């Protein structure tokens, strides 16, 4: 009986001690696991513990290693995906089921003009375009070309994401492509118009002469004058076109030397047919020279001064400024000026800001594109800006001649 009681007490005592030890180990393990969750680099101690707690620690450590490596892989993948998305020229936007932006790459950010800090996560609240709303709300995959406000024209493809609500938008900037298409279409329309008009006049006048007008001296005189004018015009257009095609093919021979801007400007001015008696002022420092082909520079300045006289107001100013490495020549006028949308296109072949007026003035519509080609062939740049308070400034920049040139 006594033996039995002692044995029972011993068993109870042993069980209590074991339970306390186990409890303490488990508590330590629990504390350590908590640290493991907080800091993924930490590992549970395995040496100081024994028994099943050690096995548990080992398993938990293996699990932690696994989680850490998976997390690293996920991070790598995410960085890779992020850099791939940012490297794309196409815009990518991922939306969740509630049309909130989940991901936005750099190109898309630029296209939709998203600010650094977003005022809203909702795409349709940020880009308020009715066509985009229809596209996103449509439950099918769809594509549409949409003009983004203050941004480019974009071809937007919406693809539904499988396995979860939401969709991915792919945006392609087609502004430049559409602009080039317009340029090409306008060029074809303009070139046929420019060539057909003088041909039509020549044909009509010749037919009228043949039909009997040749016997009427007054009538014949007028008709022959028309024939002559239009033949001249056609010849001018053809000569300009030939120049342009030579420039395009790189066959236009340029003899680059140091030339005096002032003497060429004066020479050009004397060649301009100033019918309207516009006051032209030349303000170019003596001895200022550029590296250019004298004939080409003359052709450029004749064209620009002639334009200023034809379309300007009452004055044309020719300025040249020394920019250390280059020389900037400006031809300013005080005419009606050019609207911004024309400024971007005046250097295109046959482009006319005001067709009726420029044809009347006798231009071929090729002058400015020849100017642009010539300037660029000589390593320069050319452009147009609005003049203040009115008119335009046509400017060109050419490399400066390092030695002083005789005027």
């Amino acid at each position, binding site marked *: 009986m006594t033996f039995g009681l002692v044995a029972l007490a011993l068993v109870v005592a042993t069980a209590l001690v074991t339970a306390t030890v186990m409890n303490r180990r488990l508590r330590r393990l629990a504390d350590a696991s908590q640290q493991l969750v907080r800091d993924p680099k930490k590992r549970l101690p395995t040496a100081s513990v024994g028994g099943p707690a050690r096995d548990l620690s080992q398993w938990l450590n293996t699990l932690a290693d696994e989680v850490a490596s998976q997390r690293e892989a996920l991070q790598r993948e995410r960085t890779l995906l992020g850099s791939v998305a940012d490297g794309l020229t196409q815009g990518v936007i991922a939306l969740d089921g509630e049309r909130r932006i989940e991901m936005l790459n750099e190109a898309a950010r630029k296209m939709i003009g998203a600010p650094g800090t977003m005022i809203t996560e909702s795409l*349709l609240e940020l880009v*308020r375009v*009715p066509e985009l709303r229809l596209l996103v709300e449509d439950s099918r995959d769809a594509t549409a070309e949409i003009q983004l406000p203050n941004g480019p024209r974009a071809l937007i493809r919406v693809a539904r994401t499988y396995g979860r609500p939401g969709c991915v938008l792919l945006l392609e900037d087609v502004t430049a492509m559409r602009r080039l298409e317009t340029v090409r279409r306008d060029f074809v329309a303009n070139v046929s118009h420019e060539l057909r008009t003088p041909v039509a006049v020549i044909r009509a006048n010749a037919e009228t002469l043949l039909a009997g007008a040749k016997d009427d001296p007054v009538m014949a005189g007028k008709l022959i004058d028309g024939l002559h004018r239009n033949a001249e015009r056609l010849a001018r257009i053809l000569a300009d076109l030939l120049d342009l095609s030579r420039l395009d093919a790189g066959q236009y021979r340029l003899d680059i030397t140091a030339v005096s801007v002032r003497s060429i400007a004066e020479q050009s001015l004397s060649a301009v047919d100033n019918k309207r008696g516009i006051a032209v002022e030349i303000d170019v420092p003596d001895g200022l020279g550029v590296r250019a082909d004298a004939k080409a520079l003359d052709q450029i300045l004749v064209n620009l001064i002639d334009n200023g006289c034809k379309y300007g107001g009452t004055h044309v100013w020719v300025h040249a400024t020394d920019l250390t490495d280059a020389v900037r020549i400006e031809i300013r006028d005080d005419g009606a000026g050019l609207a911004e949308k024309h400024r971007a296109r005046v250097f295109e072949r046959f482009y006319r800001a005001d067709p009726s007026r420029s044809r009347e003035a006798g231009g071929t519509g090729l002058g400015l594109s020849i100017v642009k080609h010539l300037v660029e062939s000589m390593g320069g740049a050319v452009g147009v800006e609005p003049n203040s308070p009115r008119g335009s400034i046509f400017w060109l920049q050419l490399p400066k001649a390092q030695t002083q040139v005789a005027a």
Partner: protein
Amino acid sequence: MISSHTNKDFDQELRTLRDRLCAMGGRCEKQIARAMEALEERDVAIAKQVIEADQEIDKDEIDCDELALQILATRQPVASDLRFITMALKLVTDLERIGDLAAGIAKRAVELNPLPRLDPSVDLNPLSALVLKNLHAALDAFVAKNADQATAVIEADRNIDKANASLFAELLAHVATDPASVTRVLPLTSVCKYLERIGDHVKNVAESVVYMVRATDVRHRPLPKPSN
């Protein structure tokens, strides 16, 4: 306002209403810009497109109204949701009027097209730029639920009124020096008036935004004096 409701359909309906209002606002912005482009470039084709597209805004108004009423009837919203719905009902009316006024500008552009330009020309672009900027800011304030931004829009309406007054004086000076120019000046004074009224509707939008966010009515109150 979109907060999380237990009823997902309710959330969805509110979101759709917001998206439609935003799209309608965006359409108004585009209409004003295109109408001014038509006037500036003397492009009758653009003007006619603007006049035609006004129907879309009218359709937007009906759609938004219907949806707002449907939410009101079936969900019986309270507090901020109720303020959002009542705001939406007012917002569509203002936006629809803005659309009408943009179409009005386009109609004046068509009338002005055969007439020669005024010399010296009167540039309406600074005024239209102010109006467009304010409309954009009002819609931003609506989207961001930002009452401060909306208050700034209300205050900026003063500048629109000032710009309109000075343009009006400039246009009148034309008539004084050249009475024959009156046929060209009158449509332009109308355009100025339209822009100024668009500005007033934008101000209404901003006031509704303040009400929606702060639940305080700021209509018909004197504005605080500008600092400095």
